[in-house]
């Protein structure tokens, strides 16, 4: 049962051209790191620039962009085109559908983001621990983001647009301007993880590691509960009623 759900979800996600195009965005991050390193920067410079590259581009742009596209289409595309009926007409617990969709969307996001961050981090500077720290951060952030975006796709049919607006406005602007909002910023949670796992050069995150992980867990669980509740009461309307 679960294998069939995984297979359908995975094939639906990987068949989308836009998902595959996201792999190119990851490649762009690696390319920037390569070009920068070809300029023979000093060790201190390369550490600083690569850290900022991974934080601002890897965690700040690549991760949320991939997560919003993969997360909102994991269930949202089936809701949009009506194929969700083939899942809902089965004796499958709705929490199981949500969890399988979440795990698949999370893994796809990780595959599209974490290797690119790891590679860019290893190429851009000399400390592999820093690269590893940001890769782990992207994996943790991917789970929180995809849970949020799957829940969003069950709340609104304009999940992609609203998700992009959230990434740009909340994560990009509001959390940057007002320190009080950083407690509920996925990006800040991921940066706290990067600092904790990335060693001395990983920068100074705004949030303490334990606090960031706790809030991240609460947000992820809340999003999962919301998604399950929404899927349990989702209504299908005919084209002609």
């Amino acid at each position, binding site marked *: 049962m679960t294998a069939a759900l995984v297979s359908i979800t995975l094939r639906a996600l990987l068949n989308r051209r836009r998902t595959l195009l996201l792999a190119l965005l990851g490649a762009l991050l690696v390319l920037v790191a390569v070009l920068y390193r070809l300029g023979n920067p000093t060790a201190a410079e390369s550490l600083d620039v690569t850290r900022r590259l991974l934080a601002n581009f890897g965690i700040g742009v690549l991760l949320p962009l991939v997560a919003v596209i993969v997360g909102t289409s994991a269930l949202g595309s089936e809701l949009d085109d009506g194929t969700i009926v083939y899942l809902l007409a089965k004796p499958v617990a709705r*929490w199981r559908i949500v969890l399988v969709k979440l795990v698949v969307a999370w893994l796809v996001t990780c595959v599209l983001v974490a290797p690119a961050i790891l590679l860019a981090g290893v190429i851009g500077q000399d400390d592999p621990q820093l690269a590893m720290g940001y890769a782990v951060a992207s994996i943790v952030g991917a789970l929180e983001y995809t849970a949020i975006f799957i829940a969003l796709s069950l709340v609104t049919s304009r999940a992609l647009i609203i998700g992009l607006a959230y990434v740009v406005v909340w994560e990009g602007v509001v959390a940057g301007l007002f320190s009080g909002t950083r407690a509920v910023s996925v990006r800040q949670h991921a940066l706290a993880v990067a600092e904790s796992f990335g060693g001395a050069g990983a920068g100074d995150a705004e949030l303490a590691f334990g606090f960031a992980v706790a809030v991240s867990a609460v947000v992820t669980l809340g999003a999962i509960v919301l998604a399950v509740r929404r899927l349990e009461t989702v209504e*299908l309307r005919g*084209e002609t009623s």
Partner: protein
Amino acid sequence: MGGAGIPLSADHRVSTLKLEAISRWYGNIVAVNDVSFEVGPGITGLLGPNGAGKTTLLHMMAGFLAPSAGAVRLDETPTWRHAEVYRAIGFVPEREAVYPFLTARQFVAASARLQDVDDADAAASRAIEMVDLGNAADRAIGGYSKGMRQRAKVAAALVHDPKVLILDEPFNGMDPRQRLHMMDLLRAMAADGRTILFSSHILEEVERLSDRVLVIIAGRLAASGDFRKIRRLMTDRPHRFTLRSSDDRRLARELLASAEVDAVELRDGMLTVRTGDFGALTRAVAPAAQRAGVSILEMRPADESLESVFSYLVRR
């Protein structure tokens, strides 16, 4: 999802869908209005014009839509928010969308796996053969014609051998041969004791297949029961015909004299005849024209659209 362990019918096949005074409204718009009926074993046709509320009704019956009032039960289990009922229900939606990247075999096998069917691949092969899709089963559904998609959807709906099969406009897009094949298949399933409910806006489809008919118009149940009884109601209603002839005035005079004609009207160069006996009038027109010495150029029913037939039923 709740509902696990809720018993369905003790019999392994027979199930009854009960609609208890269900209504569904969207804001101020009432899509289904206080509808009650039971659907048991055999084939029941849900007939109504487009936009009458058939799909809303079917979606409520299949548990995809919450009734605003009333309840739908499969035996004793409400269909809304009880995923367990889908062990007994197969549903074929009207919407064409099917995962385009899967082959029909993969699609039907996935349905079998999601239903926890033992040996899903063998069950999928059986279902595909039942709908006569064997030759195309290993091609991606994205390249299918409408009729082939329809058959793939039917195969997926019956792969777990459901006691109840609900089909929304199942014959859409099928060619006549496929239609006949599908009708034979549904008849065989009904003969086996299954409950089959399908919707259609085409009278002939319902006539050929259903033992029992539910007529829904503007969200209300206008008529229900044996098809022949409803057909008789439809046939015995007042009929209007328009006629064109070489001399409409003389023909009108002649027709007025015959007992089968209730009224004639000459307006804008068009002769309209009203009768309560459709068959007798068609037999009376030619002799009347002969007596009047005029030639009939055209004769056509003025109100034979399904909508007008339905409106008549509603007014009764």
